[in-house]
């Protein structure tokens, strides 16, 4: 019987891990649908971002209550996973509590500590569920969260509740163990025979580990992927001042040739390029990494002045749309082996002109993001495509462009009067 379980465990583990690895490699492919961009300067500063933003959750603490609840779940998740090492050893060797003989009294202390963490995770997760489903905080009721995204969020919470409950029940059902929190659950089994209790313990043990494997494999399909992606995303996030818009060297070059024709090469065999981004394949891979790192918390949208005043723009939706579109193209590629035009694009089919036009480039969304995502950078790339590829600008902007070009100021005023203020 034990051997059957061992073999079964080995097979399930291999299957679960292989499935996860396959999905992660497909996400990797989806991210690299984006254009190449080299980001490997100032390594020390980048590791600092990982340390403060991702590991230290610096920006989360702008909102103390969710920060503390999130810290419960985060710390619990990381530390309780140490126990998973024992579960793996037990599963493969057919043992029960393999580390116990080596740790003695310390073992009870350690597991009791994990139980405290598990209880705090439960507190955090239940509070999150209440905030989302009962209190219906504004951040969680935006139009872009209706339907699948809300179900996704709740599913994650349910899985975590099940995992933590399994852990506590398993410990409670162990007749030889007496841990800090689970001992109070022992009366549940007071009328059960020893063999039934042991069977129940095995069931919860299996439930816990199967739950972990299910969670692992649901993760890449979920917004919850941020628990992995937050780390690389923090590493690759911007170090320059937030106000700096990415330069376009290809246009800089064009203008130089125009202003100084002598510098222009006689012939050019450069392929015609398009400016800005129409689809995710025109964005940088970092934009797509951003999209896969987004956990749809909505801190960006909550801070967005356009969204606050009822405009359609929601930075969170920009990120969700970008991920959805990247996954759509990636799925097509898996099916057909190459990217075939499907008559759709991120611009227009997912993100509308009205949304893009509402942005004040104020950087509130960028500042708000706990993991260093930059919705503004995607908005800028789409705006560039609208103006330079589609000549799609509101009439007032066209007038402003004309004024800058002819009068060197955004208003229709004579450049000769630029220093008139010195005379008055």
């Amino acid at each position, binding site marked *: 019987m034990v051997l059957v379980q061992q073999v079964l465990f080995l097979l399930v583990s291999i299957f679960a891990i292989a499935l996860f690895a396959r999905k992660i490699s497909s996400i990797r492919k989806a991210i690299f649908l984006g254009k190449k961009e080299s980001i490997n300067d100032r390594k020390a500063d980048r590791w600092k971002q990982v340390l403060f933003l991702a590991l230290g959750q610096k920006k989360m603490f702008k909102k103390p209550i969710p920060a503390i609840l999130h810290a419960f779940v985060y710390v619990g998740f990381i530390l309780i996973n140490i126990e998973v090492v024992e579960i793996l050893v037990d599963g493969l060797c057919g043992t029960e509590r393999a580390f116990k003989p080596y740790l003695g009294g310390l073992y009870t202390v350690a597991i009791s500590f994990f139980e405290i963490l598990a209880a705090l995770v439960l507190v955090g997760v239940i509070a999150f569920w209440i905030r989302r489903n009962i209190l219906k905080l504004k951040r969680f009721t935006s139009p872009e969260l209706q339907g699948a995204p809300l179900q996704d969020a709740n599913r994650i919470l349910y899985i975590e509740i099940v995992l933590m409950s399994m852990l506590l029940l398993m410990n409670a059902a162990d007749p030889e163990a007496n841990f800090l929190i689970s001992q109070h659950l022992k009366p549940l089994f007071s009328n059960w025979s020893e063999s039934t209790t042991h069977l129940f313990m095995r069931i919860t043990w299996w439930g816990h580990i199967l739950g972990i494997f299910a969670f692992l494999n649901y993760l890449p399909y979920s917004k919850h992927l941020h628990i992995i992606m937050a780390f690389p995303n923090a590493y690759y996030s911007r170090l320059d001042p937030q106000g700096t818009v990415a330069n376009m060297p290809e246009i800089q070059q064009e*203008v130089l040739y125009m202003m100084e024709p002598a510098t222009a090469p006689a012939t050019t065999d450069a392929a015609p390029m398009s*400016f800005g981004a129409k689809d995710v394949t025109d964005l940088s891979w970092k934009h797509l990494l951003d999209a896969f790192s987004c956990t749809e918390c909505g801190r960006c949208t909550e801070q967005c*002045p356009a969204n606050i005043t009822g405009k359609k723009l929601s930075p969170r939706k920009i990120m969700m749309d970008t991920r959805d579109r990247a996954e759509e193209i990636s799925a097509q590629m898996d099916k057909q082996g190459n990217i075939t035009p499907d008559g759709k694009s991120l611009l227009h089919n997912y993100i509308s002109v009205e949304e893009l036009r509402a942005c004040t480039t104020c950087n509130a969304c960028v*500042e708000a993001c706990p993991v260093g995502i930059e919705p503004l950078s995607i908005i*800028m790339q789409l705006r560039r495509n609208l103006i330079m590829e589609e000549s799609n600008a509101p009439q007032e902007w066209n007038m402003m462009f004309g004024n800058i070009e002819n009068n060197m100021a955004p208003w229709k005023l004579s450049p000769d009067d630029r220093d008139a203020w010195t005379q008055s």
Partner: protein
Amino acid sequence: MNIKSMAAFAAEGSSPEILFWVGCAGSFDQRAQRVTKAFASILEKVGLSFAILGKEEMCTGDPARRSGNEFLFQMMAYNNIQTMNAYNIKRIVTTCPHCFNVLKNEYPALGGNYEVVHHTTLIQELINDGRIQLKEGGSFKGKRITYHDSCYLGRANNVYEAPRAVLEALDVELVEMKRCRTNGLCCGAGGAQMFKEDEPGTTRINFERSEEALATGASIIASNCPFCTTMLSDGVKKFEQEDNVQIMDIAELVAASLK
């Protein structure tokens, strides 16, 4: 005012300590011109030698770039950098945070490398060095004043403290809005919104921000950006508070308090 241009300095074979980049709003907008003059009067008073580019100055290209017209931005940048490099400009001060951001962060990639400061930072330095002497018990002493962080000075460039230090030096009673510093709410003008109508929504951004500023009970809203000043003035008018609440640039507050 007798303001010298870079061309005038060059003709004499000399150069000023600093270039005052006036910007389009500061040059043409009547309200912003008052800030320009106030700041120039401070520089004159402390005897800091400065020049303007005058007719040679052009739009930095900020609204063009942020609306998506990179081509136009690059043309403006090329011309401005040519002009400034020809004058061998080293240091620039500007009263517009949008110009400040472009000159400081975006021109270097295009060959324009200058030390750029925003006027609020320069004023604070001059106060610290004792070069700006403020009146004892000036007209703003004890006055309830709130300060609006512009996006391009604040979040874009992390300048939060210098303007506040200036207000402190003026002995005002500084009251913060709920959304301040990194959480400051935009006035609604950035990203070339200044030059177009709002997209459909429930209210205007400048109304939302002005309401918040008025709620502090301050009699003056201190600003550091010509566009914020315009947006907040319109917002305050909307709530019919223009007779009770003034929007003043940090430079105006200081200019009115000089010894």
